[in-house]
Protein backbone atom coordinates (compact mmCIF):
# COMPACT_ATOMS: atom_id res chain seq x y z
CA UNK A 1 0.00 0.00 0.00
CA UNK A 2 2.27 2.68 -1.28
CA UNK A 3 1.58 6.21 -0.11
CA UNK A 4 2.04 7.86 -3.50
CA UNK A 5 -0.16 5.29 -5.24
CA UNK A 6 -2.60 4.96 -2.40
CA UNK A 7 -3.08 8.30 -0.67
CA UNK A 8 -4.81 8.93 2.63
CA UNK A 9 -8.54 9.71 2.70
CA UNK A 10 -10.54 11.07 5.59
CA UNK A 11 -13.89 9.38 6.11
CA UNK A 12 -17.13 11.05 7.27
CA UNK A 13 -20.25 9.04 8.03
CA UNK A 14 -23.86 10.14 8.43
CA UNK A 15 -25.14 7.74 11.07
CA UNK A 16 -28.84 8.31 10.47
CA UNK A 17 -31.11 10.52 8.44
CA UNK A 18 -31.30 13.88 10.22
CA UNK A 19 -27.73 13.85 11.55
CA UNK A 20 -24.72 15.54 9.98
CA UNK A 21 -21.72 13.65 8.63
CA UNK A 22 -19.13 13.03 11.35
CA UNK A 23 -15.44 12.25 10.98
CA UNK A 24 -14.84 8.58 11.84
CA UNK A 25 -11.25 7.95 10.75
CA UNK A 26 -9.08 7.57 7.69
CA UNK A 27 -7.90 4.97 5.20
CA UNK A 28 -5.72 4.48 2.13
CA UNK A 29 -7.11 3.97 -1.37
CA UNK A 30 -5.88 4.64 -4.90
CA UNK A 31 -9.02 6.54 -5.97
CA UNK A 32 -12.28 7.95 -4.66
CA UNK A 33 -14.37 4.98 -5.74
CA UNK A 34 -12.19 2.47 -3.91
CA UNK A 35 -11.96 4.82 -0.94
CA UNK A 36 -15.75 4.72 -0.69
CA UNK A 37 -15.84 0.94 -0.91
CA UNK A 38 -13.05 0.55 1.63
CA UNK A 39 -14.83 3.02 3.92
CA UNK A 40 -17.99 0.96 3.70
CA UNK A 41 -16.10 -2.20 4.67
CA UNK A 42 -14.03 -0.52 7.37
CA UNK A 43 -16.41 1.91 9.07
CA UNK A 44 -19.95 0.61 8.44
CA UNK A 45 -19.70 -3.16 9.05
CA UNK A 46 -22.43 -2.84 11.67
CA UNK A 47 -24.82 -0.48 9.88
CA UNK A 48 -23.16 2.58 11.43
CA UNK A 49 -24.13 4.79 8.51
CA UNK A 50 -26.54 5.68 5.74
CA UNK A 51 -24.14 7.95 3.83
CA UNK A 52 -20.36 8.25 3.49
CA UNK A 53 -18.09 11.08 2.37
CA UNK A 54 -14.44 10.48 1.53
CA UNK A 55 -12.07 13.45 1.23
CA UNK A 56 -8.39 13.31 0.19
CA UNK A 57 -6.52 14.15 3.41
CA UNK A 58 -4.18 16.37 1.42
CA UNK A 59 -7.09 18.58 0.38
CA UNK A 60 -7.95 19.55 3.93
CA UNK A 61 -6.62 22.87 5.20
CA UNK A 62 -6.51 22.95 9.00
CA UNK A 63 -5.97 25.73 11.48
CA UNK A 64 -2.89 25.28 13.59
CA UNK A 65 -3.35 24.54 17.30
CA UNK A 66 -0.24 26.64 18.05
CA UNK A 67 -2.06 29.79 17.12
CA UNK A 68 -5.40 28.58 18.39
CA UNK A 69 -5.85 31.21 21.09
CA UNK A 70 -5.03 34.10 18.80
CA UNK A 71 -6.97 32.59 15.92
CA UNK A 72 -10.17 32.17 17.90
CA UNK A 73 -9.69 35.20 20.14
CA UNK A 74 -11.88 37.57 18.11
CA UNK A 75 -14.94 35.57 19.23
CA UNK A 76 -14.00 35.71 22.91
CA UNK A 77 -15.05 39.30 23.63
CA UNK A 78 -18.38 39.18 21.82
CA UNK A 79 -20.57 37.79 24.55
CA UNK A 80 -23.45 39.78 23.09
CA UNK A 81 -23.72 37.12 20.37
CA UNK A 82 -25.28 34.80 22.96
CA UNK A 83 -28.93 35.20 23.95
CA UNK A 84 -27.95 34.83 27.63
CA UNK A 85 -26.20 38.24 27.39
CA UNK A 86 -29.50 40.09 27.39
CA UNK A 87 -31.55 40.97 30.42
CA UNK A 88 -35.20 40.15 29.86
CA UNK A 89 -37.64 42.19 31.95
CA UNK A 90 -39.90 40.14 34.22
CA UNK A 91 -43.15 39.02 32.73
CA UNK A 92 -42.18 39.04 29.07
CA UNK A 93 -43.43 35.92 27.30
CA UNK A 94 -42.24 34.17 24.13
CA UNK A 95 -38.80 35.88 24.14
Amino acid sequence: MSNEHSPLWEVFVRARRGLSHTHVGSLHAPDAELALRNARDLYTRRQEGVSIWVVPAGSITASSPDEKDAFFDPAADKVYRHPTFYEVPDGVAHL
Partner: protein
Amino acid sequence: MYGNDFSAPGDAPDDTPGAGLLGEVEAAEAELRAAAARQRRGGPAPDEDLAAYFTEVVDAEQKIEPRDWMPEAYRRTLIRQIAQHAHSEIIGMQPEGNWISRAPSLKRKAILLAKVQDEAGHGLYLYAAAETLGISRDELVQLLLDGRQKYSSIFNYPTLTWADVGAIGWLVDGAAIVNQVPLCRCSYGPYARAMIRVCKEESFHQRQGYEILHTLAHGTPEQQAMAQDAVDRWWYPSLAMFGPPDGDSTHSAQSMAWKIKRFSNDDLRQRFVDMCVQQAEVLGLRIPDDDLRWNEERQAYDYSQPDYDELMQVIKGNGPCNRERMAHRRAAHADGAWVREAAAAYAAKRADKREKVAA
Protein backbone atom coordinates in the same frame (compact mmCIF):
# COMPACT_ATOMS: atom_id res chain seq x y z
CA MET B 1 -18.28 1.73 36.22
CA TYR B 2 -14.99 3.58 36.59
CA GLY B 3 -11.32 2.64 36.87
CA ASN B 4 -10.66 0.41 39.80
CA ASP B 5 -14.29 -0.29 40.51
CA PHE B 6 -14.07 -3.99 39.70
CA SER B 7 -16.90 -6.18 40.89
CA ALA B 8 -15.98 -8.81 43.46
CA PRO B 9 -16.64 -12.48 42.67
CA GLY B 10 -19.36 -12.55 45.31
CA ASP B 11 -21.41 -9.92 43.47
CA ALA B 12 -24.28 -10.93 41.27
CA PRO B 13 -22.81 -11.95 37.92
CA ASP B 14 -23.52 -9.84 34.84
CA ASP B 15 -26.16 -11.15 32.51
CA THR B 16 -23.50 -12.23 30.03
CA PRO B 17 -19.73 -12.38 30.13
CA GLY B 18 -18.15 -9.10 29.13
CA ALA B 19 -21.19 -6.97 29.98
CA GLY B 20 -19.31 -5.13 32.73
CA LEU B 21 -16.42 -4.35 30.42
CA LEU B 22 -18.73 -3.05 27.74
CA GLY B 23 -20.22 -0.75 30.35
CA GLU B 24 -16.75 0.55 31.05
CA VAL B 25 -16.14 1.24 27.37
CA GLU B 26 -19.35 3.26 27.29
CA ALA B 27 -18.24 5.12 30.43
CA ALA B 28 -14.92 5.90 28.75
CA GLU B 29 -16.75 7.21 25.71
CA ALA B 30 -18.99 9.40 27.90
CA GLU B 31 -15.89 10.68 29.68
CA LEU B 32 -14.28 11.52 26.34
CA ARG B 33 -17.27 13.72 25.51
CA ALA B 34 -17.33 15.20 29.01
CA ALA B 35 -13.61 16.04 28.82
CA ALA B 36 -14.19 17.77 25.50
CA ALA B 37 -17.13 19.71 26.97
CA ARG B 38 -15.20 21.03 29.96
CA GLN B 39 -12.25 22.17 27.87
CA ARG B 40 -11.63 25.78 28.73
CA ARG B 41 -8.42 26.57 26.94
CA GLY B 42 -7.66 26.38 23.28
CA GLY B 43 -3.98 26.28 22.47
CA PRO B 44 -1.01 27.52 24.47
CA ALA B 45 -0.42 31.25 24.78
CA PRO B 46 2.22 32.59 22.33
CA ASP B 47 4.98 32.81 24.98
CA GLU B 48 3.92 29.74 26.99
CA ASP B 49 6.25 26.81 27.64
CA LEU B 50 4.95 24.05 25.38
CA ALA B 51 6.10 21.23 27.65
CA ALA B 52 4.27 22.79 30.60
CA TYR B 53 1.19 23.22 28.46
CA PHE B 54 1.34 19.56 27.38
CA THR B 55 1.61 18.41 31.00
CA GLU B 56 -1.27 20.64 32.01
CA VAL B 57 -3.53 19.20 29.30
CA VAL B 58 -2.62 15.59 30.21
CA ASP B 59 -3.03 16.19 33.95
CA ALA B 60 -6.43 17.74 33.35
CA GLU B 61 -7.53 14.48 31.66
CA GLN B 62 -7.83 16.28 28.34
CA LYS B 63 -6.80 14.69 25.06
CA ILE B 64 -3.68 15.45 23.08
CA GLU B 65 -4.53 15.76 19.39
CA PRO B 66 -2.33 15.12 16.32
CA ARG B 67 -1.19 18.69 15.64
CA ASP B 68 -0.50 19.55 19.29
CA TRP B 69 3.08 19.84 20.48
CA MET B 70 4.20 16.70 22.32
CA PRO B 71 7.48 15.40 23.75
CA GLU B 72 9.41 13.39 21.18
CA ALA B 73 9.51 10.39 23.54
CA TYR B 74 5.72 10.51 23.94
CA ARG B 75 5.37 10.43 20.16
CA ARG B 76 7.85 7.55 19.82
CA THR B 77 6.24 5.54 22.62
CA LEU B 78 2.80 5.93 21.07
CA ILE B 79 3.99 5.04 17.57
CA ARG B 80 5.63 1.88 18.93
CA GLN B 81 2.66 0.87 21.05
CA ILE B 82 -0.06 1.63 18.48
CA ALA B 83 1.92 0.04 15.65
CA GLN B 84 2.59 -3.15 17.61
CA HIS B 85 -1.05 -3.23 18.53
CA ALA B 86 -2.01 -2.88 14.85
CA HIS B 87 0.48 -5.59 13.81
CA SER B 88 -1.05 -7.90 16.45
CA GLU B 89 -4.50 -7.46 14.95
CA ILE B 90 -3.17 -8.23 11.46
CA ILE B 91 -1.13 -11.28 12.51
CA GLY B 92 -4.00 -12.28 14.78
CA MET B 93 -6.10 -13.11 11.73
CA GLN B 94 -3.91 -16.14 11.02
CA PRO B 95 -4.57 -18.53 13.94
CA GLU B 96 -8.33 -18.22 13.52
CA GLY B 97 -8.27 -17.92 9.74
CA ASN B 98 -6.82 -21.42 9.95
CA TRP B 99 -10.30 -22.71 10.89
CA ILE B 100 -12.57 -20.77 8.50
CA SER B 101 -12.60 -23.54 5.92
CA ARG B 102 -13.20 -26.18 8.59
CA ALA B 103 -15.82 -24.47 10.77
CA PRO B 104 -18.40 -27.05 11.90
CA SER B 105 -21.43 -25.28 10.41
CA LEU B 106 -22.32 -22.51 7.97
CA LYS B 107 -23.41 -20.33 10.90
CA ARG B 108 -20.07 -20.78 12.71
CA LYS B 109 -18.22 -20.14 9.46
CA ALA B 110 -20.09 -16.90 8.76
CA ILE B 111 -19.44 -15.72 12.32
CA LEU B 112 -15.75 -16.59 12.17
CA LEU B 113 -15.38 -14.82 8.82
CA ALA B 114 -16.97 -11.71 10.32
CA LYS B 115 -14.67 -11.94 13.31
CA VAL B 116 -11.50 -12.26 11.27
CA GLN B 117 -12.66 -9.36 9.10
CA ASP B 118 -13.08 -7.33 12.30
CA GLU B 119 -9.47 -8.07 13.23
CA ALA B 120 -8.37 -6.63 9.89
CA GLY B 121 -10.56 -3.61 10.60
CA HIS B 122 -9.00 -3.15 14.03
CA GLY B 123 -5.55 -3.26 12.47
CA LEU B 124 -6.59 -0.55 10.02
CA TYR B 125 -8.14 1.75 12.68
CA LEU B 126 -4.91 1.46 14.62
CA TYR B 127 -2.59 2.02 11.65
CA ALA B 128 -4.64 5.14 10.88
CA ALA B 129 -4.22 6.32 14.49
CA ALA B 130 -0.44 5.71 14.31
CA GLU B 131 -0.21 7.65 11.06
CA THR B 132 -1.55 10.78 12.78
CA LEU B 133 1.77 10.79 14.67
CA GLY B 134 3.71 11.39 11.48
CA ILE B 135 4.75 7.92 10.34
CA SER B 136 3.57 6.52 7.01
CA ARG B 137 1.62 3.32 6.43
CA ASP B 138 4.41 2.01 4.22
CA GLU B 139 6.94 2.46 7.01
CA LEU B 140 4.68 0.71 9.52
CA VAL B 141 4.06 -2.26 7.24
CA GLN B 142 7.76 -2.49 6.49
CA LEU B 143 8.68 -2.44 10.21
CA LEU B 144 6.49 -5.51 10.71
CA LEU B 145 7.74 -7.34 7.61
CA ASP B 146 11.37 -6.69 8.58
CA GLY B 147 10.71 -7.95 12.08
CA ARG B 148 11.84 -4.62 13.56
CA GLN B 149 8.53 -4.21 15.39
CA LYS B 150 6.81 -6.98 17.32
CA TYR B 151 3.27 -8.23 17.60
CA SER B 152 1.60 -9.94 20.55
CA SER B 153 3.39 -13.17 21.41
CA ILE B 154 0.06 -15.00 21.85
CA PHE B 155 -0.37 -15.36 18.09
CA ASN B 156 2.71 -17.54 17.88
CA TYR B 157 0.79 -20.47 19.36
CA PRO B 158 -0.96 -22.92 17.03
CA THR B 159 -4.72 -23.52 16.76
CA LEU B 160 -4.89 -27.32 16.88
CA THR B 161 -8.64 -27.94 17.14
CA TRP B 162 -11.95 -26.12 16.62
CA ALA B 163 -12.13 -25.63 20.39
CA ASP B 164 -9.06 -23.39 20.10
CA VAL B 165 -11.22 -20.89 18.22
CA GLY B 166 -13.48 -20.85 21.27
CA ALA B 167 -10.57 -20.57 23.70
CA ILE B 168 -9.06 -17.69 21.70
CA GLY B 169 -12.35 -15.82 21.78
CA TRP B 170 -12.90 -16.36 25.49
CA LEU B 171 -9.37 -16.13 26.89
CA VAL B 172 -7.24 -14.28 24.33
CA ASP B 173 -9.89 -11.73 23.35
CA GLY B 174 -10.94 -11.57 27.00
CA ALA B 175 -7.39 -10.73 28.08
CA ALA B 176 -7.11 -8.27 25.20
CA ILE B 177 -10.27 -6.49 26.36
CA VAL B 178 -9.03 -6.24 29.96
CA ASN B 179 -5.80 -4.77 28.56
CA GLN B 180 -7.56 -2.48 26.14
CA VAL B 181 -10.49 -1.06 28.08
CA PRO B 182 -8.18 1.29 30.03
CA LEU B 183 -6.69 2.41 26.69
CA CYS B 184 -10.09 3.92 25.84
CA ARG B 185 -8.98 6.63 28.32
CA CYS B 186 -5.52 7.10 26.81
CA SER B 187 -4.33 10.71 26.68
CA TYR B 188 -3.81 10.58 22.91
CA GLY B 189 -7.17 11.32 21.27
CA PRO B 190 -6.95 9.26 18.05
CA TYR B 191 -5.78 6.17 19.99
CA ALA B 192 -8.52 6.54 22.61
CA ARG B 193 -11.18 6.89 19.94
CA ALA B 194 -9.88 3.90 17.97
CA MET B 195 -9.82 1.80 21.15
CA ILE B 196 -13.43 2.62 21.99
CA ARG B 197 -14.40 1.31 18.58
CA VAL B 198 -12.17 -1.76 18.92
CA CYS B 199 -13.41 -2.66 22.40
CA LYS B 200 -17.06 -2.48 21.42
CA GLU B 201 -16.44 -4.92 18.59
CA GLU B 202 -14.11 -7.08 20.66
CA SER B 203 -16.96 -7.81 23.04
CA PHE B 204 -18.73 -9.77 20.27
CA HIS B 205 -15.53 -11.77 19.78
CA GLN B 206 -15.30 -12.75 23.41
CA ARG B 207 -18.93 -13.84 23.52
CA GLN B 208 -18.72 -15.90 20.33
CA GLY B 209 -15.70 -17.73 21.76
CA TYR B 210 -17.47 -18.30 25.03
CA GLU B 211 -20.48 -19.69 23.19
CA ILE B 212 -18.33 -22.11 21.21
CA LEU B 213 -16.73 -23.43 24.40
CA HIS B 214 -20.08 -23.59 26.19
CA THR B 215 -21.56 -25.65 23.36
CA LEU B 216 -18.59 -28.02 23.32
CA ALA B 217 -18.42 -28.27 27.12
CA HIS B 218 -22.07 -29.37 27.18
CA GLY B 219 -21.67 -31.78 24.27
CA THR B 220 -20.29 -35.30 24.00
CA PRO B 221 -17.43 -36.45 26.27
CA GLU B 222 -15.07 -36.05 23.29
CA GLN B 223 -16.23 -32.47 22.75
CA GLN B 224 -15.84 -31.72 26.46
CA ALA B 225 -12.32 -33.12 26.41
CA MET B 226 -11.50 -31.02 23.35
CA ALA B 227 -12.78 -27.86 25.08
CA GLN B 228 -10.79 -28.63 28.24
CA ASP B 229 -7.65 -29.34 26.22
CA ALA B 230 -7.96 -25.97 24.50
CA VAL B 231 -8.37 -24.15 27.82
CA ASP B 232 -5.40 -26.09 29.23
CA ARG B 233 -3.18 -24.89 26.39
CA TRP B 234 -4.40 -21.26 26.15
CA TRP B 235 -4.66 -20.35 29.84
CA TYR B 236 -1.03 -19.54 30.63
CA PRO B 237 -0.20 -17.91 27.29
CA SER B 238 -3.25 -15.69 27.89
CA LEU B 239 -1.93 -14.71 31.34
CA ALA B 240 1.42 -13.91 29.70
CA MET B 241 -0.34 -11.45 27.36
CA PHE B 242 -0.28 -8.88 30.17
CA GLY B 243 3.48 -8.73 29.88
CA PRO B 244 6.27 -9.28 32.37
CA PRO B 245 5.63 -8.80 36.11
CA ASP B 246 5.64 -5.18 37.27
CA GLY B 247 9.18 -5.38 38.65
CA ASP B 248 10.56 -6.27 35.20
CA SER B 249 8.38 -4.03 33.04
CA THR B 250 10.51 -1.46 31.22
CA HIS B 251 8.03 1.03 29.78
CA SER B 252 5.50 1.28 32.58
CA ALA B 253 6.30 4.26 34.81
CA GLN B 254 6.64 6.88 32.08
CA SER B 255 3.58 5.58 30.22
CA MET B 256 1.57 5.84 33.43
CA ALA B 257 2.68 9.46 33.94
CA TRP B 258 1.67 10.27 30.36
CA LYS B 259 -1.68 8.55 30.91
CA ILE B 260 -1.04 6.21 28.01
CA LYS B 261 -1.22 3.31 30.42
CA ARG B 262 -3.54 3.31 33.44
CA PHE B 263 -2.90 0.09 35.34
CA SER B 264 0.14 -2.09 35.91
CA ASN B 265 0.59 -5.44 34.15
CA ASP B 266 0.03 -7.36 37.37
CA ASP B 267 -3.13 -5.42 38.26
CA LEU B 268 -4.65 -6.20 34.89
CA ARG B 269 -3.57 -9.85 35.07
CA GLN B 270 -5.21 -10.18 38.49
CA ARG B 271 -8.35 -8.61 37.19
CA PHE B 272 -8.47 -11.06 34.28
CA VAL B 273 -8.04 -14.07 36.58
CA ASP B 274 -10.77 -12.84 38.91
CA MET B 275 -13.16 -12.50 35.98
CA CYS B 276 -12.38 -15.88 34.46
CA VAL B 277 -12.97 -18.04 37.53
CA GLN B 278 -16.73 -17.60 37.58
CA GLN B 279 -16.95 -17.79 33.79
CA ALA B 280 -15.07 -21.12 33.84
CA GLU B 281 -17.51 -22.45 36.43
CA VAL B 282 -20.45 -21.71 34.15
CA LEU B 283 -18.62 -23.43 31.30
CA GLY B 284 -17.99 -26.44 33.51
CA LEU B 285 -14.32 -26.31 32.50
CA ARG B 286 -11.32 -26.34 34.80
CA ILE B 287 -8.70 -23.61 34.86
CA PRO B 288 -5.44 -25.59 34.81
CA ASP B 289 -4.03 -24.20 38.06
CA ASP B 290 -3.89 -26.31 41.25
CA ASP B 291 -3.04 -23.25 43.31
CA LEU B 292 -5.98 -21.16 42.16
CA ARG B 293 -7.97 -20.18 45.25
CA TRP B 294 -9.87 -17.25 46.72
CA ASN B 295 -7.83 -15.08 49.07
CA GLU B 296 -10.21 -13.50 51.56
CA GLU B 297 -7.62 -11.02 52.78
CA ARG B 298 -6.75 -9.68 49.32
CA GLN B 299 -10.32 -10.10 48.04
CA ALA B 300 -8.81 -11.65 44.93
CA TYR B 301 -7.74 -15.04 43.63
CA ASP B 302 -4.27 -16.41 44.24
CA TYR B 303 -3.00 -17.98 41.04
CA SER B 304 0.13 -19.43 39.45
CA GLN B 305 2.20 -17.12 37.30
CA PRO B 306 2.76 -17.97 33.63
CA ASP B 307 6.22 -19.05 32.53
CA TYR B 308 7.91 -15.71 31.79
CA ASP B 309 11.01 -17.39 30.38
CA GLU B 310 8.78 -18.97 27.78
CA LEU B 311 7.22 -15.56 27.11
CA MET B 312 10.69 -14.07 26.52
CA GLN B 313 11.58 -16.95 24.20
CA VAL B 314 8.39 -16.42 22.16
CA ILE B 315 8.99 -12.66 22.03
CA LYS B 316 12.53 -13.34 20.78
CA GLY B 317 11.11 -15.36 17.89
CA ASN B 318 11.38 -18.89 19.21
CA GLY B 319 7.69 -19.64 19.75
CA PRO B 320 5.99 -22.57 18.02
CA CYS B 321 4.71 -20.50 15.06
CA ASN B 322 6.82 -17.29 14.85
CA ARG B 323 8.49 -18.18 11.57
CA GLU B 324 5.27 -19.49 10.03
CA ARG B 325 3.32 -16.34 10.93
CA MET B 326 5.94 -14.00 9.48
CA ALA B 327 6.44 -16.11 6.35
CA HIS B 328 2.69 -16.09 5.77
CA ARG B 329 2.44 -12.31 6.25
CA ARG B 330 5.36 -11.63 3.89
CA ALA B 331 3.90 -13.97 1.28
CA ALA B 332 0.45 -12.35 1.57
CA HIS B 333 2.03 -8.90 1.17
CA ALA B 334 4.05 -10.02 -1.87
CA ASP B 335 1.11 -11.89 -3.42
CA GLY B 336 -1.07 -8.80 -3.05
CA ALA B 337 1.41 -6.54 -4.84
CA TRP B 338 -0.25 -6.98 -8.26
CA VAL B 339 -3.63 -5.95 -6.82
CA ARG B 340 -2.17 -2.74 -5.38
CA GLU B 341 -0.37 -2.04 -8.66
CA ALA B 342 -3.47 -2.74 -10.77
CA ALA B 343 -5.64 -0.48 -8.61
CA ALA B 344 -3.04 2.29 -8.81
CA ALA B 345 -2.72 1.90 -12.62
CA TYR B 346 -6.50 2.02 -13.00
CA ALA B 347 -6.73 5.14 -10.82
CA ALA B 348 -3.94 6.81 -12.84
CA LYS B 349 -5.63 5.93 -16.14
CA ARG B 350 -8.95 7.34 -15.04
CA ALA B 351 -7.34 10.51 -13.69
CA ASP B 352 -5.60 10.89 -17.04
CA LYS B 353 -8.87 10.55 -18.93
CA ARG B 354 -10.57 13.12 -16.71
CA GLU B 355 -7.74 15.55 -17.36
CA LYS B 356 -8.04 15.08 -21.13
CA VAL B 357 -11.79 15.66 -21.00
CA ALA B 358 -11.23 18.79 -18.94
CA ALA B 359 -8.57 20.10 -21.35
